[in-house]
């Protein structure tokens, strides 16, 4: 892959985000590291509450050290130490170096602003261009994201558009100033299944055209499958498994990844076959279990798992690693045969 020869645009080293809440410290991101090169796409997968959004926002610097939050570790974005510079410097990166597409297009557009304003204000602020130039560029952008009649749409308010259309606007907004890195935080979760694929394909095409690096966040392994080069599986704020997407899919080694994969609906399955959901709930992040975070829900767990925190260990394969005391190998049986990690 050619992208591996380029120098990384994003380096995340041992990032931690802790929220100090009345209930105690919530360790939403707990020591995550990765790199991303131009043109590369990374999938970030995990259940709801596993810290994906917080990770994405901390990487951008939207979440940073303040009265109620502690961020440690290092994020280097286009050569800038995101959390080491002043707010104003950090802000200069937003929109131009890095941009974000949010989870819910229903709430990520200002209800009292016209669609056109959403786009032109960004353009005029960053590119310092005239109103007319900005408007032309905005129409162009709306056309690129596949919105029919862009001129008319510019004058509409968000509530006059469908969810899919709004998400296209959000994407256009993110791409307005040609950022080099795009963080798409579950861009399709709030949309109809039929629209989901369209939006994901659109994102894929646009980022390839522009040779952008992309982080695609999802709780759905299926969405990530054909669209990312590498994938990182998160559980309770920690990376549990990472590697080439194809390899992780072909042979998951962490019981959690395995369980996630098993819960994707497969077309070849019989129409009414049971989907395997993962039993139990994600841990309370203010008070996570000692040892492996997944141990309480894991069919393979033993006493080591409940006492020692597993660290990422390299496996065969480029960049492949897993944080598990008992990684799955082909044909391995769960400890205590009556327990299975699935249903």
């Amino acid at each position, binding site marked *: 892959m050619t992208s591996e020869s380029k120098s990384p645009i994003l380096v995340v080293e041992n990032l931690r985000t802790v929220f100090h809440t009345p209930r105690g410290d919530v360790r939403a991101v707990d020591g995550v590291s990765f790199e991303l090169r131009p043109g590369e796409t990374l999938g970030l997968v995990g259940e709801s509450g596993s810290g994906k959004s917080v990770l994405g926002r901390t990487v951008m610097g939207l979440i940073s050290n303040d009265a109620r939050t502690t961020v440690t570790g290092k994020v280097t974005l286009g050569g800038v130490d995101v959390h080491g510079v002043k707010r104003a410097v950090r802000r200069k990166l937003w929109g131009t170096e890095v941009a974000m597409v949010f989870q819910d297009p229903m709430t990520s557009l200002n209800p009292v602003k016209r669609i056109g304003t959403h786009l032109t204000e960004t353009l005029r602020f960053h590119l310092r261009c005239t109103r007319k130039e900005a408007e032309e560029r905005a129409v162009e952008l709306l056309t690129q994201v596949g919105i029919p009649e862009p001129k008319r749409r510019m004058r509409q308010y968000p509530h006059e558009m469908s969810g899919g259309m709004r998400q296209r606007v959000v994407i256009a907004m993110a791409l307005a100033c040609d950022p080099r890195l795009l963080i798409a935080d579950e861009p399709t979760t709030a949309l109809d299944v039929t629209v989901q694929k369209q939006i994901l394909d659109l994102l894929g095409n646009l980022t390839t055209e522009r040779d952008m690096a992309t982080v695609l966040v999802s709780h759905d392994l299926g969405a990530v499958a054909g669209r990312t080069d590498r994938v990182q599986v998160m559980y309770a704020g920690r990376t549990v498994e990472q590697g080439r997407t194809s390899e992780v899919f072909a042979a998951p080694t962490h019981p959690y990844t395995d369980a996630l994969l098993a819960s994707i609906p497969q077309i070849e399955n019989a129409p009414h076959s049971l989907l395997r959901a993962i039993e139990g709930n994600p841990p309370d992040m203010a008070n996570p279990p000692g040892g492996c975070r997944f141990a309480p829900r894991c069919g393979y767990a033993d006493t080591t798992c409940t006492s020692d925190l597993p*660290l990422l*260990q*390299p496996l065969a394969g480029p960049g492949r690693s897993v944080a598990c005391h008992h990684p799955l190998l082909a044909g391995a049986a769960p400890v205590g045969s009556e327990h299975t990690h699935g249903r």
Partner: protein
Amino acid sequence: MPEPDINHTGDPVDAPVPAAAAGTALLDPGEETAAKPRVSRRTQLLVGAPMLVGGLALAGFAATTALLITLAKVLLLVVGLLVAMNGLGRIAEAVRGKSVDIVFVLGMTWLTVLIGLAVLAPLLPLGNHNDATQGLYAPIFAEPELGSEYPLGTNNYGLDMLARAIYGARTSLVVSLFAILIGTTVGGLIGMVAGFLRGATDRVVGILANALLAVPPLVLLIALGTVLSPNLRNLSIALSLLTIPSMVRVARANTITFAQREFVLAAQAIGATRMRLLRKELLPNVVLPVASMGVVMVSMLIVAEASLSYLGLGIRAPEPTWGNMIAEGEGGVMEAHPFIVIVPGLCLFLTVFSFNLLGEKVQKRWDPRSAKL
């Protein structure tokens, strides 16, 4: 916790994750505060004590000195009291081991003391509060002096300010609390019936309530004051009129929401009569929001009563109320003898402030929905 050094991916390389904290977090999580790690109790105590003493000293100096102009005095007094309060808060925190809402504690203390004094007033060895002929034998405009016969001074009739302030509290509290009682009962019932029956009844009640709201509260009171002779009963009734529209609204809204809940529908399905539904199913659910609205409105009524008597349309002097006591400061009296205004003014402020604190807390606890507005 073992942290083997075999990661090549650069995962946790720095100090061990204090994940062990998970094991120690047996403390009640509700007792922790949201702030980043706080200072120790010892420091709190060491900082708090001098702040309390220094603040009080500053306030005392500001209150008694003759050196400064009024503005500077007032500022200094306020700063001193704030510092003292902060110090007291720190001490309380150090003693109890968790953060204490010291303002709330002080406010409730004030209310308790005030209500106690107001209730016991006739039994207390208080000075002359309303007998102007007896006042002829007392000094007029005696300056406040703690420990003297007139700790808070006397007014222009030689009446004792402390006694008047306490009897003023009595009037204020009796009138407002009775008004709230009438308002919550009448307004609550009307609102419940309107919300339960809906239709024409609801619309008529709505228009009546709007008509009552169409006259601004104080103007309504003044209009009533033209007609009614100002005594405790009439004032309570007049003030209760101010609360009724709000009570109707709260009771009605809550009745409507609860009437659609499953348990009410279920009761209806098994053939409960309307009366029974209202009494057994709806009333218990409507009482709390209405009562919390009542607590919230107490302070408004105290202010209204004080305003009315300040304007000379409420209880008339020499019978004391805080409002007519403040009105005694008119015509240059306030300039010559500031305490004539300061004593009742401070009582009024502290009481309204404390009731506001209480109202806020109660509303958060009992009726979180409307607390947001």
